[in-house]
């Protein structure tokens, strides 16, 4: 493969590593301050992770209002259980696990109380208007909707792996499944996305055989 592209990947990896180190520093100092009694410093952690966590939960639930409630509750729970957090590990996967558990419980409650199965297409349709305002690029919008149309475990795994750069074992822990299940979910989800985004990614001249 081409060397310039490899150099670009290496540069982007370096930038990613530097950003993660900075993030760890912010979290470590904020947690130290909170444990020392300065509760207001927790706002720094909320500011840092709120959008990331919201997009994860939103992708899981596809309900903006519920996602905001769950994100808020997840931050509060993380605060009240801060003593259980192992500072040797990254903070975000721990926080994401709390949020995913809350989201799973929410889905379970909705399913138990629902008189009929929810209309998946209708749920996604609700997001289209919001997406139009936020995501200008048509192709990105289509991809977002294609990811949102995947089954819950697959779409959560996709977001955590690609968008939030979590490791496979961290995703497995958060979703309460095995590493193998996550690998299978990623494989299936990629195949589905390739198929639904075929025109976008596979001009006939470029790819003679289907993958």
């Amino acid at each position: 493969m081409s060397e310039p592209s490899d150099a670009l990947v290496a540069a982007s990896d370096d930038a990613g590593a530097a950003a993660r180190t900075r993030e760890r520093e912010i979290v470590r100092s904020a947690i130290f301050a909170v444990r020392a009694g300065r509760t207001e410093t927790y706002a720094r952690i909320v500011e840092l992770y709120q959008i990331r966590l919201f997009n994860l939960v939103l992708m899981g639930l596809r309900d903006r209002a519920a996602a905001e409630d769950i994100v808020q509750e997840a931050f509060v729970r993380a605060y009240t259980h801060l003593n259980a957090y192992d500072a040797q590990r990254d903070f975000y996967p721990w926080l994401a696990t709390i949020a995913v558990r809350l989201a799973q419980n929410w889905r379970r409650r909705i399913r138990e109380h629902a008189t009929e199965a929810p209309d998946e297409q209708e749920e996604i349709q609700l997001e289209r208007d919001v997406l139009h305002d936020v995501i200008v690029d048509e192709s990105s919008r289509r991809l977002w909707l294609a990811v949102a149309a995947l089954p819950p475990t697959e779409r959560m795994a996709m977001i955590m792996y690609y968008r939030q750069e979590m490791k496979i074992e961290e995703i497995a822990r958060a979703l309460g499944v095995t590493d193998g299940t996550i690998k299978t979910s990623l494989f299936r989800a990629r195949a589905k996305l390739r198929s639904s985004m075929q025109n976008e990614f596979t001009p006939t001249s470029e790819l003679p055989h289907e993958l």
Partner: protein
Amino acid sequence: MSCEQVRKIIAGLPRRQWSAEQNAHAERHMRECEACRAALSVAERLDAQLGALPELPISESMTPGVMAAIERRRAAARDAATNAVPRPTSEARGWWAISLGAVLGLCAYFGALLSGAAMPLGFGRLSLHPLVAVAAAGILLCLSGASLVTRDRPKRPASS
């Protein structure tokens, strides 16, 4: 490695998850195979676009909302701690047990005296009398009370 095998690797997981061995085999094959190079390029474009998937904004009131909720929980926890009825210590419970045991013991003793069935300082022939059970309960209460009283007391260092 055949095209089919390389396509399986490409379709399987993103490239950063490939093993060193898979990477080396695929790399060697793709030097010669334009179709597999194209397949990898398509897969990498999808992976890159997924990595840059746009994020939807969250309500601006999230941070103040979280901090207010935390403050409410802390206030509730403080109130609960203030209003909670303090649980008596082991020592206090021990003394209560000893007192109750002593009262039961005295009741049994004087009951025996009044009924004329026993001599002072002894229960004589009353081995199956209900007063014996009362006296036994009193003794048990006194013993368990004594154990509660002494449980949390620091032990004296052994004298040399």
